[in-house]
């Protein structure tokens, strides 16, 4: 994978618990039951969603389990702009949206932050101003936008359309719509009187208008539906708006409620069903072939460079655009500080300080402090193999990106213990790795102990824990003896793991059939990466934690200790197998 070799991923338990959801079909439940005793497969597409580097994981002390980003609940503490570090109150987030409303903008081409520059050629930096990208040199000049002031860019930008035309605000839109509606109704009334008059020329001028923008159509539609629904439900006597009895209409309705005769007559009136939008000001847009033709012409003329890539489109506020001239600078997305709770017991797992510029945490329960860290590295070959005479003097850097197929290679599994109690570790691994390239794996010493994470000075002061003699585990043939640990320190132990990397292509004579079609097939992405799933089970005795001890106090002993165990899958990325 993209992390430099070697690396370790930890699998969160929620992957397993998810496997038996009620929504599964019967066949899948059966399959899941079969999978119970199967090993973790780092190649399955689902594993990408359950594997995390140890640093990304939290640990719930009450549930005594690893918590991945999937099994925590997040609560937003505060909002801020990552570019200007301005804290945005939640009311503003609600009203103004999820973007910075100050001067922070990102380039729509390359997403780097933009700066406000002056176009003034004299040296006093006067107006007009533009937003310019310091990386790709795109600027708002290209879409015909200039600003009068260098502050409050977003409010200025909201009022200028591409090309410099003003954008009407919501209020202006409503007013304009009212005006047009009145005009239309007057026209209709006029036609009623005159019986059959020709269409007035004003309809033609309407047609000449540029096609309405997405926002225009949307606000027209919204206003239309609102008007229709209000016409539908006029008599809602207890609606909070006209609850006052002062208005004559409300009074009328109340009277109607309690007088039978008048109400019956009124009720006969059928309200008309809601109609559909009839014109542009109500949001109806009839398909216009000329827009299509214009777009085709433009592509023909301007070619590839004038169009937008899918990624550029998706970052725009309105993704339904096609050409570079439609781009708008993107206001920076706000970021949040969030606290995290365990999903099952709702205890807080992490809580940052609310100050924006502070990176400290009030509460932070990291898996790093509770789960032993497993790492792997190549065993210096001088000790393991009968040393080749030439290379023994100068040790070349081990190349993790080119493991040799078929040659047994030794690695050191290094386990360090963050707990304050010594732990007993059992490692397990499938003898061949899953996937197309099958490598054979043997852990030479699967059961061992790791010391407690005591004071650093203990190591130096106590001389009893002397390092193991290397020679003792290398037998006479120069082979590493199984069942013995390689090395140990204060709170760490390392054992040897032997790996025979598999062959990328099936090789005749190694028990594999060389199939013509199979041999032709190329390996997919990452199939040449050697990843070993390792099951880690740790046992230790720990102090009974505070709450349970409180219960136990009645019965007696204070220094009671309890046995605990943890088990989880890890995936160790060893390296890339070199092609032959």
């Amino acid at each position, binding site marked *: *994978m*993209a*992390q430099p070799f070697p690396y370790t991923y930890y699998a969160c338990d929620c992957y397993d618990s998810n496997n038996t*959801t009620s*929504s*599964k*079909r019967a066949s*899948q439940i059966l399959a899941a039951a079969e999978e119970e005793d199967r090993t973790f497969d780092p190649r399955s*597409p689902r594993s*990408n*969603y*359950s594997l*995390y580097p140890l640093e990304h994981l939290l640990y719930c002390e009450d549930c005594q389990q690893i918590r991945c980003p999937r099994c925590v609940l*997040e609560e*937003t503490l505060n909002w801020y702009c990552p570019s200007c570090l301005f804290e945005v109150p939640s009311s503003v987030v609600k009203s103004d949206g*999820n973007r910075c409303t100050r001067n922070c903008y990102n380039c729509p081409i390359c997403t780097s932050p933009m700066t406000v520059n002056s176009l003034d050629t004299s040296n006093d930096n006067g107006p007009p101003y533009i937003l310019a990208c310091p990386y790709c040199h795109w600027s708002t000049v290209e879409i015909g936008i200039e600003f009068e002031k260098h502050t409050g860019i977003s409010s200025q930008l909201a009022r200028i359309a591409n090309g410099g035309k003003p954008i009407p605000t919501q209020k202006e839109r409503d007013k304009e719509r009212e005006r047009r509606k009145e005009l239309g109704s007057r026209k209709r*009334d006029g036609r*009623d009187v005159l019986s059959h008059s020709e269409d007035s020329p004003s309809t033609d001028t309407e047609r000449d208008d540029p096609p309405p923008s997405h926002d225009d*159509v*949307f*606000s027209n*539609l*919204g206003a*239309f*539906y*609102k008007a229709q*629904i209000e016409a*539908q439900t006029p008599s*809602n*006597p*207890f609606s*909070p708006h006209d*609850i006052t009895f002062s208005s004559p209409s409300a009074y009328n309705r109340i009277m109607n409620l309690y007088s039978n005769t008048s109400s019956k007559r009124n*009720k006969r009136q059928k*309200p*008309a*069903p*809601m*109609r*559909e939008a*009839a*014109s542009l000001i109500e949001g109806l*847009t009839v*398909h216009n*072939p000329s827009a*299509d033709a214009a777009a*085709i012409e433009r*592509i*023909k003329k301007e*070619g*590839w460079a004038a169009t937008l890539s*899918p990624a550029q*489109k*998706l970052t725009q506020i309105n*993704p*339904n655009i*096609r050409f570079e001239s439609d781009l708008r600078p993107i206001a920076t997305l706000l970021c*949040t500080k*969030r606290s995290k709770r365990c999903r099952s017991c709702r205890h807080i797992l992490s809580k940052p300080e609310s100050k924006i510029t502070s990176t400290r945490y009030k509460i932070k329960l990291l898996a790093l402090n509770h789960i032993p860290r497993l790492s792997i590295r190549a065993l210096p070959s001088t000790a393991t193999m009968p040393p080749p005479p030439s290379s023994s003097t100068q040790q070349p850097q081990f190349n993790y990106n080119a493991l040799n197929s078929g040659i047994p290679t030794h690695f050191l599994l290094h386990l360090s213990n963050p707990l304050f109690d010594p732990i007993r570790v059992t490692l397990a691994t499938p003898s061949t790795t899953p996937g197309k390239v099958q490598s054979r794996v043997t852990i030479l010493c699967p059961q061992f102990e790791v010391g407690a994470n005591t004071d650093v000075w203990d190591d130096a002061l106590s001389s009893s824990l002397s390092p193991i003699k290397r020679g003792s585990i290398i037998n006479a043939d120069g082979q590493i003896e199984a069942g013995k640990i390689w090395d140990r320190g204060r709170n760490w132990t390392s054992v040897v793991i032997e790996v025979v990397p598999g062959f990328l292509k099936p090789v005749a004579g190694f028990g594999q059939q060389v199939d013509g079609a199979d041999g032709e097939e190329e390996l*997919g992405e990452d199939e040449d990466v050697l990843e070993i799933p390792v099951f880690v089970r740790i046992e230790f005795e720990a102090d009974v934690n505070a709450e349970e001890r409180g219960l136990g106090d009645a019965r007696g002993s204070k220094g009671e200790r309890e046995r605990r165990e943890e088990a989880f899958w890890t995936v160790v990325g060893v390296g890339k197998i070199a092609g032959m």
Partner: protein
Amino acid sequence: MSSLGGERKVSASLSRSIRGTTPRLADLASTPESPRTPLLRSTSSLFGSPGGSFRTEDEYVVLEIGSRFVRGGFPGESTPRCTLSFGLEEQRRMGDYRQWDPEYGHKRRKRKRGEEWGQDYELYRLDLAQVDLGLVEDKFERAMREAYNKYFLLDTKPRRILLALPPKMPHSLMSTILDVLFGSFQAPSIMLMSSPVLSTVAAGLRSALVVDIGWAETLVTAVSEYREVHERRTTRAAKLLSEEMAKLLNAALANDVEDGSPKADVSFEEADEVLTRVGWCKSKPKSNRNTLYFPARTSPILEEFEDAVESPEPSVTIPFTRNTPPTEITVPFASLAKPAETSLFAPGTALNEFDDDELPLHHLIYRALLSLPMDVRRLCMSRIIITGGVSALPGLKTRILAEVEALVQQKGWDPVRSYGSASARHEQVLRQQREIFELRRQEGEDKVSESLDPDAPLPAGLQDPEEDAIDAKLAHLALRNGAPPSCSIGGTIRGVETLGAWAGASLVAQQRIRGIVEIERERYLQHGLQGANREKEVSVVPQRQSMGPGVVRGAGERASWTLGVWA
């Protein structure tokens, strides 16, 4: 008071009218003929003052789920806050930063063995035999987490969800999606609405023929008065289109490189990018239809747009940075329209060679219209909404509408097609109709001269009907009070633009309209989808309850819930 109560009960049972509750789409469809009695909110006790407490502020999150994209945002906004895709980069492990590696951008990804075109980029597919629902759940959960944490930025208050879904969805897939939304995102309730209806809403219409050209299939849904009445689908959609584009690019690349170098295999992203950037569609059908008879007036216009050969032939230069070595190829502009041509319209193939699920779009639309009842057809044919990702291809909408129009001209609305002698008769009938039409028109033009001649009495069929003064008055009244005449337009092929299903959902949520299908969290967690009422229609009007002060059930709560069209 007792008589009033009795009347109220009658009215409640008579029909589901609107009466003070928030209106629903289905309610708007039916004309409420019953009296409008006030509904006493059951939350406000008899002696309490009405108002205030019962209007709980229901805030919504609006989601639209498609097979390749998820859109999410808030009601009342015209565009979604985010549009999330399911590419390879979204499926990487946490802490895998290889996409930022500058070298990585120049590598072309290979398709995995035995994998269909673009399979890695889908959230789900309808053929569940090939779908790992767990993986769908993983993908969807991650996308929703990104939407909530990066784009929605909500406070802790749980929000209801308005979910726009395609009208046919396997239940196990639906419950996978609902599981995530109820479980991981704590939604108190989820309202489901079908995306064709929402597209209709976003076009400002009540009835429409919604042509949703999606990823795996094109779905033609006839919506009448906000209800789906008919549905047809074909596999001619974006997937086929982009695969076709990839073939074209592969051929162009093979021409470009010298022999000996390995054959290029364009990746999905590249084909997709070319398609969305410079792909287009000829907006006029080819004129090789010899059988097609256009009315005399319109034919010259159509003939005019023959493929006039331009000299020099326009072309587009497409960079391929992921190719090894990076290269640029120049493709004739006209050829970029071919994938749309072959994949969506398949002009070279006879109609009887198509399988049931791969009809070309225009035939599919025509057949859908043909199978509708006549009055619904009249409304739908002049309200054709073309939506979905591919509909952004320039020229495509015009082309589809032109093709459908041509088909209608050619075949009329006769379901009998080629039946030996019947076809000849059919031709004849059509020709007759057309002649009558022409005749009428000519007569209309010459009416003045003819009426000057008082001796020749017009045949009764051609005479103007007598004008009824009352009819005229009613028409006037209708014109003034009722809908403008353009609302009842019908009988001609016309396309209407829509803002898309998401915008429709946003509009619906903004007006606080509640849908038929509303799933409460508690009930879902108890029974899952099995808890739904079998009936498709559930009375959405709250049942009358005793008005005693002890009644505490919420006004919005329903006795049972249904899955509506998804049942």
